[in-house]
């Protein structure tokens, strides 16, 4: 059941767009039409599912303090974690390039729909952000195996895709509305995103331990879990905290 837990949490409560503002640049730039939004959303899920587990392996076997001892026990004291950023971004960029070439070779139809978006994704913060959150949560002991990481990768990508498709649908409708001149375009998009984020906050009230089999530990579990998962960012710890208080 912990997988369902991670899935729901990454998809709704810790949605990449509405809770962490990741991938905002492409979220705002490519959300004008639903079909393109679907394409970019699919590409993000695809790349996220490939790169986050890959970076998990890199972190586990190269970067973590003492991770290199599989080569030689004398490397036990090495700590390469300061190289995290450069290795993660390098693996993201190479994977994106590789995936693009492979798709181009073997599936031209998929390439025609996704290919355009793949270069955009190398610099999408949601992708690198996913890997960095994964690293942070592994350090905090929230995720402990490949299954957790895969679930997180898929759910966070899906959350991003859902967000951009919803946004594109709203913006298509908004073409016909009479928006104040200074707010037209970018301004109203920000405000609509803000209102959607308020809507997504209500998912914070979901009692994830309803999925668990031991209901008597419910409230205590919920509290510790959320305080562990909540990242160091003050915004989100506050939002999650206050919502939990209300739901309890």
């Amino acid at each position: 059941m912990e997988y369902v837990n991670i899935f729901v949490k990454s998809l709704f409560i810790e949605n990449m767009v509405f809770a962490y503002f990741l991938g905002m640049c492409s979220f705002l730039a490519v959300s004008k039409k639903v079909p393109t939004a679907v394409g970019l959303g699919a590409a993000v899920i695809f790349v996220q599912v490939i790169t986050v587990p890959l970076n998990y392996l890199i972190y586990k076997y190269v970067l973590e303090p003492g991770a290199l001892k599989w080569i030689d026990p004398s490397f036990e004291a090495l700590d390469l974690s300061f190289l995290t950023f450069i290795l993660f971004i390098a693996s993201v960029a190479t994977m994106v390039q590789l995936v693009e070439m492979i798709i181009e070779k073997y599936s031209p139809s998929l390439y025609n729909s996704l290919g355009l978006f793949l270069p955009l994704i190398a610099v999408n913060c949601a992708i690198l952000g996913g890997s960095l959150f994964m690293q942070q949560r592994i350090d905090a002991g929230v995720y402990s195996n490949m299954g957790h990481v895969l679930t997180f990768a898929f759910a966070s990508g899906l959350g991003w895709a859902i967000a951009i498709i919803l946004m594109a649908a709203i913006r298509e409708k908004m073409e016909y509305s009479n928006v104040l001149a200074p707010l037209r375009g970018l301004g109203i998009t920000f405000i609509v995103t803000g209102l959607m984020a308020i809507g997504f906050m209500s998912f914070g009230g979901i009692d994830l331990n309803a999925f668990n089999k031991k209901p008597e530990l419910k409230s205590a579990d919920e509290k510790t879990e959320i305080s562990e998962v909540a990242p160091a960012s003050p915004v989100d710890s506050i939002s999650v905290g206050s919502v939990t208080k209300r739901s309890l």
Partner: protein
Amino acid sequence: MSDTNKEGLFSKSNIKLITNPLNDDNPISVQVLGICSALAVTVQMKNAFVMSISVIAVIAIGNVIISLLRNYIPSRIRIIVQLVVAAALVILVDQILKAYAYDVSKQLSVFVGLIITNCILMGRFEAFALKNKPWPSFLDGLGNGLGYGFVLMVVAFFRELLGSGKIWGYPVLGDPIEKTGVYSMGYINNGLVILAPMALLMVGIFIWVQRGINKKLIEK
């Protein structure tokens, strides 16, 4: 610097490189770049300030490096080269923050690392540094960094003031628990302003005000 002979270091066109991004060509509210981090770090002015300084440093120095390398970078792999330059600079910034401002670096969490994929960086590298000499590139980086920092500070000012009644950590509105200052008249902090959605609304309002004043930015 060879170009200084023909053109003064602070000639009119060079000064424009710095002043333009503050208003007419602001990276956040006009070019729509670098929004991810702008929204996430604006709960407190101190964090926003540290973030702005980091971004200014990375863009300005990165721009100079890319500009120096511009004739040697094969265009097919330029994105990866740009990412490597950005990542190397961000690692430096991250280590410096961890050494001298550990609390702030903990609060900024992954967002320091995300400077690498900050679209302002890629945007400026692609659009400016690859085509221009080091000195204008430096000014361009500085200007765009300042434009980014300006929006960050304005948004952070209002979010901190309305959300927790403080400016730069000092309780200017009195003590909400002891009921001093404006709180004695029944004023309450608006808790919503601290939460994620209000960051978006705040930037929306910033854009509204900016375009209300500067009519030529209005979209059709």
